[in-house]
């Protein structure tokens, strides 16, 4: 088994590409906000606004509930770390990623789940109704999303013969098929749900009846809140990148030489912008669903994923 | 003498008599008549043993005949009379089945016996009929025990069964070794006495000798 040996002779780009996600994820969120407001005919804040928010929050003192335990304070760091580690796994520009031997797509999903687990606990620790409500709904949504997302990924993994993201990314440009389209659609729905966007959740509200993500982090303030938000941004960008790597990785750099890398950067930026555009479109075209209508939406997505699996096995591609 | 007995097939006559005394139980209503019929039955049995003794000419059979006469023919009937007197039982016997029906059924029982004792089971022995009759007597008296409610009636039914048993014994084996007969007779005597005691106990405990009171223990 030659992961170790192979992973030594990688170029620095391979080692550092995860920084792109950590650094630019707020920007992506800003872009989505901007596009959304523009579509709704408003001006809205600048695309850099998330950075300002984060820096401002870092400088603030924190108000912590007396009810809470050490877990409340530990949670933001754990969430951030887990998400960042997930960011390390996913190849952004180059498939020459040394971290492919650290974990595969399943690991990535479970790292995100680790973050969610602690976020939910943090929501419960303050002992308020909102926190509990947020955690409860977040975990429920996860129950609906996770199998569907997994099945979509499985289809991809099966067609690529591996769950190793790098391998999938290297194999797939050749293989594009109906089953991929179905899986992709399912995966997009999964992203919408996971990143807490309309129609599943509304990121811009604190209306207690509707909020999910915001409910959990309601008690957080200062740098804790900053870390939580930042982790959220990263998660969003990770999922975008994952979708790109798995379903249309065409253009990702297969080797370390600068030219291909430059091309990869351009292609990647374009793809991400495409994703943000899609998100903005979805958010401004759809209305928020009632919570108990979600099963029909996500269940439908599950059916899509299943169909993609079946078609792949039947058509063999 | 022997020739005379065989000529008139005395044995068959006596055994048929024994069968009749058993069948007639189904028609009787009062305990006294039960006791009477039992007495007759026992005398016939003793007579039969005596006849067999004449035929075979074994001394211990004469003894057996006397013993039977003494115990079954005299002691037990007296004992029963005593109990009947002591218990002052109502003389009516309420059977579960009507007399005619039970008579019919006892007829069926006889048929079953004749049917089941096929040829080839008993080669020797002086009378196949006697055996069938004896088994019939046993079954009929069991049937009487089934249909009658009084404790004492059941005791008498048991005694009839034993007479039938004796009949079978002699028809099959010309009588068993004396010592064994003694043992058997002794056992049965004890049995009857204890049955009597219990009958009295039941009368005391349940204020009646009716068996349908004796259904507390169930399930």
């Amino acid at each position, binding site marked *: *088994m030659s*992961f*170790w040996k192979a992973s030594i002779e990688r170029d620095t780009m391979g080692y550092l590409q995860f920084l792109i996600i950590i650094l630019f994820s707020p920007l992506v969120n800003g872009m989505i906000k901007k596009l959304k407001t523009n579509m709704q005919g408003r001006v809205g804040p600048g695309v850099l606004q998330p950075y300002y928010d984060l*820096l401002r929050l870092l400088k603030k*003192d924190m*108000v912590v*509930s007396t*009810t809470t335990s050490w*877990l409340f304070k530990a949670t933001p*760091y754990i969430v951030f*770390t887990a998400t*960042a*580690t997930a960011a390390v796994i996913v190849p952004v520009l180059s498939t020459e990623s040394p971290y492919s*031997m*650290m*974990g*595969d797509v*399943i*690991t990535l999903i479970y790292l995100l*789940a*680790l973050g969610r*687990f602690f976020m*939910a606990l943090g*929501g*419960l*620790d303050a*002992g308020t109704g909102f926190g*509990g409500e947020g*955690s*409860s*709904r977040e*975990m*429920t949504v996860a*129950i*609906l999303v*996770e*199998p569907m997302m*997994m*099945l979509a990924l*499985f*289809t991809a*993994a*099966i067609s690529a*013969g591996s*769950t*190793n993201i790098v*391998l999938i990314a290297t194999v797939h440009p050749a293989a594009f098929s109906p089953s991929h389209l179905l899986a992709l659609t399912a995966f997009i729905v999964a992203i919408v749900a996971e990143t807490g966007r309309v129609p599943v959740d509304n990121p811009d509200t604190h209306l207690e009846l509707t909020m999910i993500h915001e409910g959990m982090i309601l008690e957080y303030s200062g*740098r804790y809140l900053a*870390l939580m938000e930042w982790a959220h941004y990263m998660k969003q960008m990770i999922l975008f990148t994952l979708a790109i790597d798995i379903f249309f990785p065409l253009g990702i750099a297969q080797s370390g030489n600068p030219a291909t890398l430059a091309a990869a950067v351009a292609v990647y930026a374009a793809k991400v912008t495409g994703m943000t555009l899609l998100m903005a479109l979805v958010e401004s075209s759809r209305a928020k669903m009632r919570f*108990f209508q979600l099963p029909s939406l996500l269940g439908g997505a599950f059916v899509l994923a299943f169909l993609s699996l079946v078609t792949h096995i039947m058509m063999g591609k | 003498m022997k020739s005379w007995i065989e000529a008139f097939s005395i044995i068959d006559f006596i055994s048929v008599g024994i069968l009749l005394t058993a069948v007639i139980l189904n028609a009787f209503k009062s305990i006294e008549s039960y006791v009477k019929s039992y007495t007759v039955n026992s005398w016939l049995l003793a007579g039969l043993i005596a006849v067999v003794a004449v035929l075979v000419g074994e001394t211990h059979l004469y003894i057996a005949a006397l013993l039977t006469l003494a115990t079954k023919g005299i002691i037990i009937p007296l004992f029963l009379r005593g109990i009947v007197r002591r218990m002052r039982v109502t003389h009516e016997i309420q059977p579960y089945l009507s007399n005619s029906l039970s008579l019919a059924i006892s007829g069926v029982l006889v048929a*079953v*016996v004749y049917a089941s004792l*096929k040829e080839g089971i008993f080669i020797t022995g002086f009378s196949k009929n006697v055996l069938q009759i004896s088994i019939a007597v046993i079954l009929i008296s069991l049937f009487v*025990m089934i*249909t*009658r409610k009084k404790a004492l009636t059941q005791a008498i039914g048991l005694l009839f069964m034993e007479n039938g048993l004796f009949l079978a014994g002699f028809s099959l084996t010309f009588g068993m070794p004396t010592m064994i007969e003694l043992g058997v007779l002794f056992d049965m005597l004890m049995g009857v006495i204890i049955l009597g005691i219990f009958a009295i106990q039941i009368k005391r405990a349940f204020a009646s000798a009716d*068996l*349908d009171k004796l*259904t507390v223990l169930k*399930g």
Partner: protein
Amino acid sequence: METEQLLFFCIVLFAVGALSALVPVKTFRFIPYLFSLAGSLTFLFLGLILTGITPVSYQALSSSSIFEFSLRGDALAGFFIITISLVASAVSVYSIGFTRNSVYASLSGFFINVLILSLYAVVLSANLFTFLISWETMAIASYFLVTLDRSEEASRAGLFYAVMTHIGTAFIIALFFILYRATNRMDFEGMKAGITAMPTAVKTIIFIFALIGFGTKAGIVPLHTWIPRAYTVVPPHVAALMSGLMVKMGIYGFLRISFDVLGQGPEWWGITVISVGAVSALLGILYGIIENDLKRFLAYSSVENVGIILLGIGASMMFKSNGLAALSSLALTAALFHVLNHALFKGVLFLGAGSIIHSSGTGNMEHMGGLLKRMPVTGLFFLSGALSICALPPFNGFVSEWLTYQALLLGYQSPSITAKIVSPLGGAALALTGAIAAAGFVKAFGITLLGAPRSDKSRDAEEVSFSMLAGMAILAVPCLVFGLIPGPALSLLMPAVYLLTGASTTLEHHGVLGIGQTSAALSPIGMLVTMIVMMIAVLVFIRIRGGKRKIVYADSWDCGISGLTPRMQYTATAFTKPIRIIYKRIYLPSRDIKVQYFLKPFFVKSIRYGGEITPFFERYVYEPATRFIQAVASKAKLLQSGSLNLYLAYILITLILLLIFAT
């Protein structure tokens, strides 16, 4: 053979331990647990030896001129012995503190020794007689321990458990007899040798009986119903033994019969097992998540984990029957590793639950809360257990589930379409199960240990004694270690895998788990390093950008009303309400709301909300069956009506029937 003396020594240790429990002196109550600890550790040594050497048969002892006891140790037995030893030693340590001033009779010490010894005996049994004796000894000891809490409920639960397991045993006896009749041998080796000529139909019967018989013990749906009842009443330290180990004996027996003895069967066996596993995992955790009794929830979760183990086993059988030995060994590795892991984290969870119940005085989550502040160490161990069982990295549960995923994904390599479709669906089921389990343990941990205490007893709960903490530590530490460095653990179970599948793959390589067929890789240790680096980086970054900021402590935000009370917190029932609504097809919930008014309809005095679900299998399978039997029996009572005449009639009728038909 030196292991023979070792074995004998262990048995003596447990026997002495059991007898020492009969000393009715309260201060000596800890002695039996010392013996069981010593015995378990010695057995651990024995197990390590057995995984390394060729199978050993021990001197047989004759029971009568018909049967004999004989023991045999091979790699499979060795692996299970190691698993048992780990949990048993932890439980022994825990019990020292737990039973010090508990109300339980000193007999618990006796029966715990017997139970542990019988567990070892089961895996070491070499013939069916020995196996049955050990198997039922295990059942009896656990039956007594279930009823140890002398309540009516406990006595009923115990009866239910005993009868269920006895029915299972009846199936096992039947399948043993079929095997014996076919091979004319009573020892497993002989059966294995003689099985070759057996027609597939008979093999199938045996397989199905094994699935039912051992499945009853393992608690597969729908034979799981005894598990929640029993674990609700059983003392927690025993629950750790039962859920962690005794349930695994079902798995062991199934492996021994359907892998070791039967060899390989048609593909649909494997697919059946996969489906059963998926159903058990899903229904188990679905029924579990809505339970508010901590131990009951854990009980259901062990049904779920047995399901996960069966997913692995089924995949392995499927591959084996398709001749894919390497994949088969991979799947079985996943299953066995999950056996070990589940024993560890379910053990620590039950022991933790025991401590929580011990000091909060209730098993009901609705009366707990805020315990993490009051018992931080227990809380930490419980958290590690929860993380492991939710298969979250970097704990051991994640590794075994990751392997299971890989095995299921590789199902597409098997030729038949059914297998291609079923196995990824199994993966999806696993994902769903994982998500529900995560929600369940967020509830189990969050409602009990976080927030504000919901009862006075929980308010003044305090940390438990040292030996109890030590007991939990013995299990919690391996949970993390096996998660980070799975290599050693895998090398322990690899011989067993080789024994059963005839192939073995070294997955672990310089701390990297790699699947040869797919070059999918996982490096928990690397993950940990990354996490640490990230943690340091973010701390430094925050320190630089944000400088030092102070923390202001205040009440939670109360929307401006004057002060929150613990009763305003989210309750356990409310937490799972959405799930109850979404899966109402499965739960068939029924709710009743009693509202009292000052003045209808506006001024409400009080609202009582009572909701309950329909326990499907109890209501529509078990209860009707029991009612039917009872009804028939009470009808039959008329046979003994008490009338002497009737009895005499029986004699006459019997006689006449025999005269007519028999002559």
